[in-house]
Each structure stands twice: as structure tokens, then as C-alpha cells.
């Protein structure tokens, strides 16, 4: 488990507790042994301004990857990005 309390971890994950799309991203982060820091947000979509300020949308999951400067939403996009950036192709 590469879970960390270190806010300097390269990846910040905005997530909702028990959201399967967020867990999907967690699995991928674990697969590539990436350090990440979790921030949990409200289930109520309209209460997620913190995510909107970061990514421009209120959807979760969203990630901020400081090592590449990428901010991204939608689990399928994030998984594809993680595969391309940290997957076997490298």
C-alpha cells in the first residue's frame, strides 16, 4: 500500500468514500506503487466546490499529479493516463 499522509506525495486523489470509480483509481495507483494523498469529499454533488476549484468540475475521482502537472477527472481517463505515464510502456 503506497498510501501516505505526506501532502508532498506526487499524486493527490479527490475521492468519495465507497465510490467504485474512485476505488478503481486507487487500485491502479497501488498497481504502479505510486505515492498518493487522499482527500475525501461530500457525496452531495453541489457541495464539492473544492473539487471544482481544482479540476473545473465537481466529479470524482479527480487527480492532481504534481510530477507531470496533470489535473484530470473521470476514472476511465485517469486509468488510461496512469497506464500511459507509469505503465509498462515506460
Amino acid at each position: 500500500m503506497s498510501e501516505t499522509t505526506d501532502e508532498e506525495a506526487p499524486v493527490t486523489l479527490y475521492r468519495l468514500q465507497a465510490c467504485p470509480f474512485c476505488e478503481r483509481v486507487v487500485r491502479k495507483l497501488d498497481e504502479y506503487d505510486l505515492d498518493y494523498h487522499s482527500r475525501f469529499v461530500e457525496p452531495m454533488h453541489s457541495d464539492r466546490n473544492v473539487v471544482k476549484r481544482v479540476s473545473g468540475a465537481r466529479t470524482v475521482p479527480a487527480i492532481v499529479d504534481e510530477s507531470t502537472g496533470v489535473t484530470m477527472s473521470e476514472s476511465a481517463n485517469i486509468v488510461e493516463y496512469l497506464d500511459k505515464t507509469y505503465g509498462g510502456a515506460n
Partner: protein
Amino acid sequence: MELGFEVVDLPETDHPTEGEEAPDFTRPLVTDEQWEDAGLSELAADHPVLLVFHPMDGSFPATYVWNELRDRAFEETHDVQVVGLSISSPYEHMTLIDDREMAYPLFSDPQNGVAEAYDIVNDLDGMAGVSEPRPAVFLVDSERTVQYAWVAEEWPDFPDYDEVAEAVEAI
């Protein structure tokens, strides 16, 4: 749920199953007005108990589960009392009971000892030092014998409410 990708499998557990004794426990039992220590065995002595372990109050599964159970209202047509349990504090339980407009009391177990006794602990990734019960439903009769048990094998996962209804009808 059809998601097009695999969800997280939870490890095997040794939770109580049909015919086994449900571990007894005493915890604060919260209504919309008050809370007081109550034991599972005392409750079950009055009427069979449908004990519902749910993720912390405010999570979307807690909302979904209680909306569904409130709408099904098993207690109106069967000899059963529906009782919840989560790691949330009594104050949060009062808010949940009000928000969901439901009459069910909820056990408060912030240290998650009951989940340990039932072997259904779910360690939460990304929340250091916090664990809660995995979603689970136990129907317990007056002898505290388990008549029906469902424990999540994936995260997230939801009870099969029709199966629960059949179990309640059979009691």
C-alpha cells in the same frame, strides 16, 4: 452494479452464519431524541432484530441503505425490529435519523469493536487509524441465533433486499 471494470474484493471472513450465535454487545443506542446503552440480547428478547451494519453516516451507501429499508418498512408487517450500527457518533446518528426521516434506532460504535467481534472489519484506505464495519445484515432471533446473514464480499456492495425480505417473512 454493472460498471465495466472489476471492483475491490474483500478478504474472506469468519463472520457468524445461519444457525450460529450472534455475538452479544452493549453500545449506545440512538434515537432521534436520546441515547442509552443497550444490549443486543435485551433487544432480541423483545422481537427479532434485523441488525444492519453500514458505512459511516453521511456516506452515500448509508443514505441508499436507509432509504431502501425505510421504504420497505419490514417492521410494519412482520415481527422484526430494524436496528443500525456504524462508527458514527450519537450526534451524527441523530442527524441521519432526521435526514432520512426514519424511526430506526442506531448503535454507535466509534471504536469498531462490534465489527471486530463479528469479524467484519473494513480498514479504510486513505483514512489513517479509521476502520468501520463492512456492509452487513444479520437477522437475529430471540435466542440470538442468526437466521440470515449477508456480509459484503466487495467494496462497495449492497444487501440483496429481496433476500432480506424473504428472511424476514420466514421468521
